[in-house]
């Protein structure tokens, strides 16, 4: 098993090799399914000038939002970034660059990047500011724009259960962008809630096969809720 045992013992080891100026692809939607401890490790390391590819940028004080505190992010590639005041400040001050990308296009850019497809045509964004300057081609009478895929120097991922081989299962809607992010990193680092032994996960139920995964670390998670909406039990 030694060659396939991807479990590392510390967060420092998990993020070893991350350098200034690198691109990091992060799983998560809002605060759901975010690799919260791997993000905290990037803050601790103090790595700067990062390009972060993630649907959102956390909130003030949690998730990717904490990387804004010491200005570690140079550029965000996201579909929606309106959840934190610090982000707004740095954006308006010109200290932070943002490439707004439609959510489905963002997911597909990661998927294609991990699958070895350099670009794809989509109708999403045609005729809008997103389509400006992009190649247009008609298929069956409809115009599509060419979107390039994304790969990261690192991908940081949150899963529920994982085994030593890096086979992963996500929990509920904490899946979101994580499976695509996992495929698109030169180095893919996953933090999991529960470590199981190879063979314990049903092979046909695995969401992310271990071939995509380089490092696994077991974490404990706060799992902060962004919009706590409940109804009465009656």
């Amino acid at each position, binding site marked *: 098993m030694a060659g396939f045992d991807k479990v590392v013992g510390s967060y420092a080891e998990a993020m070893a090799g991350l350098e200034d100026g690198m691109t990091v692809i992060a799983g998560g939607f809002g605060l759901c399914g975010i690799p919260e401890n791997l993000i905290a490790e990037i803050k601790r390391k103090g790595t700067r000038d990062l390009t972060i590819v993630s649907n959102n940028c956390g909130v003030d004080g949690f998730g990717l939002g904490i990387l804004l505190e010491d200005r570690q992010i140079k550029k965000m590639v996201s579909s929606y970034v309106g959840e934190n005041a610090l982000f707004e400040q740095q954006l308006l001050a010109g200290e932070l660059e943002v490439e707004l990308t439609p959510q489905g296009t963002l997911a597909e850019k990661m998927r294609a990047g991990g699958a070895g497809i350099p670009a794809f045509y989509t109708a999403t964004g*045609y005729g809008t500011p997103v389509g400006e300057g992009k190649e247009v081609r008609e298929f069956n009478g409809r115009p599509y724009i060419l979107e390039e895929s994304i790969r990261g120097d690192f991908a940081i991922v949150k899963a529920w259960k994982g085994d030593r081989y890096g086979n992963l299962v996500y929990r509920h809607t904490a899946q979101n962008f994580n499976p695509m992010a996992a495929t698109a990193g030169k180095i893919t680092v996953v933090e999991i809630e529960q470590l199981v032994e190879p063979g314990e996960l049903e092979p046909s139920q695995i969401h992310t096969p271990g071939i995509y995964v380089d490092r696994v670390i077991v974490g404990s998670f706060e799992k902060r809720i962004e919009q706590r909406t409940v109804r009465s039990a009656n």
Partner: protein
Amino acid sequence: MSLSREQLAMRVARELQDGYYVNLGIGIPTLVANYVPEGMNVMLQSENGLLGMGPFPTEQQLDADMINAGKQTVTAVQGASIFSSAESFAMIRGGHVDLTVLGAFEVDVHGNIASWMIPGKLIKGMGGAMDLVAGADNIVVTMTHASKHGESKLLPQCSLPLTGAGCIKKVVTDLAYVEIADGKFWLKERAPGISVDEIVAKTAGELVVPEVVPEMEF
């Protein structure tokens, strides 16, 4: 009287059919879920990766790993499925969702929609709206007919940056139900108590008015 938010949602709910997969945007569109007719089954799609969204959880059911596209905690109905964002947008982009309901700032006679960006104001992002309008065949836009200052939001040409081009065919406003075809708005229904003259006055784009304009039913 112009329609309330609830009445708008009630009118949109008349577009539902049994067995529909439906994506509801944030705001008034979300309210449509409250007016699914008795005996009708629809499956709500949430673009973060949930098909079969249920009501908000009770305190006991609350789970940080179960949210909708508005980042609210939700539940899943029996028979729901959960999947990745890429899978979710394959459904949306691939035209598998039967009905999409979303809000807008403006629509025009060409079926263009502007809903995400007001130049000069902080731009938060388009989220999944561009994918939804590009992928869906059956889209209903819900919005007020005119701004608070009385300026029409049904225009000859959208003035704001677009979310999608040539993709909108149905608009439910607080004054009327309007369809878009052949480069024109077509008045189909008026809100109870609203005169055709008021609708005409508040529609900047070319509006075709039939001899009889029925009142909306809910």
